[in-house]
Every structure is written in C-alpha cells, then in structure tokens.
C-alpha cells in the first residue's frame, strides 16, 4: 500500500497521471492547491479512489475550503499526514 500526494487542482493533467499510477489499495492525499479537488463539484474526478481520498486540513483551512468540502473526503491534519506515511510502505509525490 502506497501513499500518493497530489498538489495540483483537478484541472491539471497531473491528476490523470496520479490516478493511473495508483494501485487498488493505495491512498490519495490532496495537499496544497490539490485540496480544490475536495470540493463536491469535483467528485466525479475521484470516483476511482472513493473511500481512499484524503485532503490536508491546514491547506483546506488556509483556502477557506474546509466547510465547503465534500463530506466523502476524509480530512487529516499534518499529524495525520505523517501517520499515513508511517503506515504506507512508500510515499509517491505527484506535482
């Protein structure tokens, strides 16, 4: 099980690359501008990783998006980010 981080919004082609590079058990954590993908309007982009999609709380808060997020996206803070890197075998960063 790998952790993938994505720092680009869903309009970026990097999203497709990240999704194509993910295994069936891998998790995707949206960070930086990637957290825009946590909005309900972008839900369709992440159907393939339903239940395995996370967003970084601090980056949601700094953009005012925390209350607007899709409730299906799990929110983790930096501590939670670190915890995910501990449990996942490796971390792949998409940017």
């Amino acid at each position, binding site marked *: 099980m790998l952790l993938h981080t994505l*720092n680009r919004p869903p309009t970026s082609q990097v999203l497709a690359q990240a999704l194509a590079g993910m295994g069936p058990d891998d998790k995707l954590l949206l*960070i*930086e*501008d990637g957290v825009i993908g946590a909005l309900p309007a972008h839900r369709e982009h992440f159907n393939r990783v339903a239940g395995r999609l996370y967003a970084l709380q*601090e*980056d949601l808060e700094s953009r005012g998006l925390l209350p607007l997020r899709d409730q299906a996206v799990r929110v983790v803070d*930096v*501590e939670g*980010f*670190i915890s995910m*890197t*501990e449990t996942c075998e*490796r*971390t792949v*960063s*998409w*940017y």
Partner: protein
Amino acid sequence: MRYAILLLDAPYTSQASHSALRFTRALLARGHDVEGVFFYHDGVHNAARLAAPPQDEPHLVDSWAELAREHSVPLQVCIAAALRRGLLDEQEAARHGKLGASVAPPFELTGLGQLVDLGLRCDRLITFGP
C-alpha cells in the same frame, strides 16, 4: 522512524518550502529522526544566505537554519544545482574567483550521492515538488 525530506522548489515561489518545513517540524515533534533535508533543483534557493524577506513574512531560510541547529538536522544542498544558480559557499566562491559566499552553515554543499544515501538509509523519503 528515520525520515528524509527532498525539496525541489524555491522559497516564496510555490507552497513547497512551507509544506516541507511544516512537515519536518511535525516529524520532529512526533519523535521521528530526520536524517536530512536535501535541496535539489530550484530547492537550492532555500539556502540563500542573503535572503531578506519582509519582516512580517516567515523567513524560510532562517527557519531551516534554526531547525538544523535545534535538532541537528543536516541540510544538504546539491552542489551542481547550487553552483549554476549562484549559490556558493566560501570554498566554492574562492575556487571560482567570486566575491563573497551566498551559502553558509548549517547548509552544506554536497553531491547527489548523498540523496541516494538518504534514500537507502532512511525508512521514508518524502518529496515536496513545485
């Protein structure tokens, strides 16, 4: 666990430096060992000794240096990426006939082999890209 951080973008250009610094601080607070932060590509600008951001903004260069001094975290800067961007320590400035150095301890110019070594030696290598 033993962690290493790879930072690939310049301070104040993207969020990468802020993210990497925040993550590294949280790692240390959680009791992990950070065996090194490696600055590569435009990330080498984090080592710019002469950086002078406005006083009401976070000083990223000083923040890295402070973290290194308080927690003995090695700050390793890719020498090839640094030299071509005008980032030279005293030794390299003398070697290339330049006036003044733009990199100072605790940042150290080092080879790419150190990044390979960090990757092999540490349990986790976390990359913060542009």
